[in-house]
């Protein structure tokens, strides 16, 4: 069975579970528990290990979608899941207190995966908080990580079309980087 693992990462409450639910062909398996940090995200439960969904590409091939827990105390899970992944969709809530900081922290946390595979940034709640703009997020990445080019896409995690666009952009990026990786890095 060929499998392709894609991570959905980002702070607690950004919409990772919802995004996976939008495009998964199976009921999303979630391991949630009571949220004891209502100050960070005002929702009754939060993911403590992972969410799981999948898309069957053929009889013997699946895209596995894993949502990683947003809270830093579960960061040991990030490493375990990242090892199996080919890429990541990093969700950032543009209405958060400091979305640029969330963006850059997410890149730092998964830099190895980003360099090895690829990443797409999905900006949510842009309608409620239009600044920083997509361009400003892109500029922040370029300033903090010269040479690193990551697509930044407005994403409503509830909208399957938005999440599909992010996923397809990620796959296109990964395939092209694989195709044109320098000989010494292959």
């Amino acid at each position: 069975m060929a499998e392709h693992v894609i991570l959905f990462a980002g702070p607690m409450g950004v919409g990772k579970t919802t995004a996976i639910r939008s495009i998964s062909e199976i009921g999303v398996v979630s391991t949630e528990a009571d949220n004891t940090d209502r100050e960070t995200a005002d929702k009754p439960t939060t993911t403590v290990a992972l969410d799981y969904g999948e898309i069957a590409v053929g009889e013997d091939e699946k895209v596995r979608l894993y949502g990683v827990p947003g809270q830093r105390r579960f960061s040991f899970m990030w490493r375990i899941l990242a090892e199996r992944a080919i890429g990541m969709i990093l969700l950032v809530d543009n209405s958060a207190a400091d979305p640029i900081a969330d963006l850059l922290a997410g890149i730092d946390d998964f830099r190895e995966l980003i360099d090895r595979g690829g990443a797409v940034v999905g900006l949510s709640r842009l309608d409620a908080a239009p600044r920083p703009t997509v361009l400003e997020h892109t500029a922040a990445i370029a300033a903090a990580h010269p040479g690193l080019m990551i697509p930044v896409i407005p994403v409503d995690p509830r909208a399957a079309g938005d999440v599909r666009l992010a996923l397809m952009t990620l796959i296109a990026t990964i395939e092209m980087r694989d195709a044109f990786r320098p000989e010494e890095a292959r």
Partner: protein
Amino acid sequence: MSTPVLLRIDVVGAGTIAIDPRRHAYSGDLDLARLPEHPTAVVVETHPADHGDAGVDGPGRDLDGLLWRIGTVAFDDRPASWRWPGDRYRMLRWPNLGEIGAGPDDLRALAMLATTAATPEEVAAATGADRGRVERIVNALGLIGIVDSGSAAPPQPSAPVVQRRGLFQRLRDRLGF
């Protein structure tokens, strides 16, 4: 010292837009989907940036969308006038995909130009995209100002790298993307 300007563009019969290049934003009643490929008349006005009536309303929309639309239709399938034959192009940043309505072939072409410098011909050969469409994409990226050009070395794909039936294509078929 240069003075920042605002632009006001009236596409006769289609609508009017205000552009603020400093904010990379535009606003107005011009529906991009209805922007004629060959408008009968276009009136362009410039105003100093402190001109009260000519500014962009609210946060505006990302200028990428407008420039992409113009760049992909203004020169048909031919290279834009500022381009040189044989140049290879490499993208400097991704355009705002939420604004440009990129199709699957566009995505693959953009992903390649984000990865390596290539001519439109090389992009078309590697991705299977229509050559004319790639010319339009490069024109649009040039108009947005996010593509570098020059005589870089040709791209070196690891064969058979650009798989016509790679995961992207299989997933595209599966999702009806």
